[in-house]
């Protein structure tokens, strides 16, 4: 009887179990947040020496991904590369929810988040990069919602102009996020114009990888075939775009390492040494460099499996794992050398911080899982067949 009822709703038991699991993870994060804000219990691993921890890096990870998704989906309906129009709706929707997941992480990290809304308007400080970041991300969110509405209503010009302004505000917001770190002179590892530029570049990597993963995972979860256009686009995004963007990021990283070590610049040198042979070395070499950059880069360039959907999926998963660790390393490494010397400061995320990280991912996946069922996320390409047509067997994915 229950099964018949679920069939009538068009949802499977597995789907409901999945939603239940995500709700449970989200609720665990909610409990942490409530305890954190109602009691004086110290639930976070961050200290006064390393005040910004993994929740800030999770925020950075999600908003970087959101920006990247905005960039990649703009290729289609904003800049005229029509093959990307297939993923436009999904990409813009994901862009919104990854932004919300990022807001959840930073909301719990902030000690008094309920003051945020009013104070940003009541006593704004225009010299503060955080204020500008909040301003641009608010605009960005508004443009994304308008863009998504334009796509759903098939109002091409509305979607195009909202997408264009979304793109511009994404660049502004995201480079300002980089500037929050880049303008802190007290942290030489971050300071300089590198981070605002690097954040924009790595957003392209992050957004491309995330869109590949979610598109393939959705088709796999729904046990339906992928249109030839979509398959072709996934391989193109992996083999060409992702590999190209990875190459740029590797190029940037090489010069970041060289300039941080050459001539022992104070602060930068210590930070980089912490990464390459200090307390962060394992995370840096294994996850950030090997899993996140070099393996997927060479795999996508040279391995024949990089032309298949599973190959592209694995490469994208590696890249995203590496990027998550990379954000963590970036945030912590900047603070790891205390102002008064005394060796490296230590930071280990607490279990409760991990729970909030997990609930940010759960929020993103929960909204997406519901959105897939109730919103028309399958896009169409103006020059080709729709996503529903020309399907191949689901077995092609495996």
């Amino acid at each position, binding site marked *: 009887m229950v099964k018949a009822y679920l069939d009538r709703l068009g949802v499977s038991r597995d789907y409901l179990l999945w939603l239940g699991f995500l709700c449970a993870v989200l609720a665990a994060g909610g409990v942490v947040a409530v305890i954190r804000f109602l009691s*004086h219990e*110290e639930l976070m691993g*961050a*200290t*006064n*020496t390393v*005040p*910004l921890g993994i929740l800030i890096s999770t925020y950075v990870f999600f908003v970087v991904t959101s920006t990247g998704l905005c960039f990649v989906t703009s290729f289609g309906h904003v800049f005229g590369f029509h093959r990307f129009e297939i993923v436009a709706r999904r990409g813009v929707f994901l862009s919104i929810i990854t932004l919300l997941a990022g807001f959840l992480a930073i909301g719990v990290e*902030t*000690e*008094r*988040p309920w*003051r*945020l809304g009013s*104070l*940003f308007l*009541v*006593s*704004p*400080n225009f*010299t*503060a*990069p*955080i*204020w500008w970041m*909040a301003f641009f991300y608010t605009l960005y969110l508004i443009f994304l919602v308008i863009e998504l509405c334009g796509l759903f209503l098939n109002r091409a010009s509305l979607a195009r102009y909202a997408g264009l302004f979304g793109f511009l505000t994404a660049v502004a917001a995201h480079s300002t996020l980089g500037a*929050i770190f880049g*303008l*802190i*002179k*007290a*942290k030489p590892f971050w300071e300089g114009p590198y981070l605002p530029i690097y954040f924009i570049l790595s957003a392209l990597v992050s957004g491309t990888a995330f869109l590949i993963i979610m598109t393939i995972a959705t088709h796999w979860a729904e046990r339906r075939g992928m249109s030839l256009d979509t398959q072709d686009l996934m391989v193109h995004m992996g083999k060409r775009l992702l590999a190209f963007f990875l190459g740029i990021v590797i190029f940037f990283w090489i010069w970041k390492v060289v300039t941080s070590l050459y001539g022992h610049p104070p602060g930068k040198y210590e930070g980089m040494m912490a990464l390459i042979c200090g307390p962060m070395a394992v995370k840096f070499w294994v996850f950030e460099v090997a899993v996140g950059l070099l393996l997927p880069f060479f795999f996508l360039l040279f391995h024949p499996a990089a032309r298949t959907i599973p190959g592209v999926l694995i490469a994208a998963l590696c890249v995203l794992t590496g990027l998550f660790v990379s954000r963590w390393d970036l945030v912590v490494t*900047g*603070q790891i050398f*205390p*102002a*008064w*010397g*005394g*060796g490296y*400061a230590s930071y280990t995320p607490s279990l409760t911080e991990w729970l909030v990280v997990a609930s940010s991912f759960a929020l993103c996946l929960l909204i997406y899982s519901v959105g897939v069922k109730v919103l028309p996320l399958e896009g169409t390409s103006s020059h080709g067949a729709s996503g529903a047509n020309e399907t191949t067997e689901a077995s092609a994915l495996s």
Partner: protein
Amino acid sequence: MKSKRYAMAIDLNRCIGCDSCAVACKMENEVPVGVWRIWVNRREAGTYPRVRRAVLPVLCNHCENPVCVYVCPVKATYRRKEDGVVVVDPHLCIGCKICMVACPYQMRYLDPVKRVAQKCDFCLHRVQAGLNPACVDACPTGAMYFGDLMDPASPVARLLSERPSQSLKVSYGTNPQVFYVGKDISVLPFEKGGSIYDKREKG
């Protein structure tokens, strides 16, 4: 009314590193366990038998060019126009902690009870009542001088006019208003070696 510019000078030849300043500050401002508004940085240098120990009391420098003020998104921390003291309004602070990261001296902490950023405010409540900050009055050797730099008769102005002084980390361009006299702080061993900061912080 003519504006004031409060400043502090610490004579390192007189400081004996007794921590009276840190304890007095704790009592006066009800600073919670595990965090400090002023503390004495101690460092040993050299090898036996040529070993020396240096002490350096550190507190918020009330910079003329305060980066913590620039980065605060909601103006919860600001420099008072009337006397140059950099203060935190705990009712405005959202606890984003960016000021703690941006301070080159790491003199800010997260109040574990109120969950907002806090730091030394030169005991403004005492100063406005015509008293010295608690640390200055508690110093048994009279190593700490406080007053208005615009008033040539104030203890700090007199000391700084008579003796050469230095400030911490001047390369950051913050223009600190806490000065050190008596020893050349650039040759003291505070940039390398062990720090008590983390030990103190973890209480």
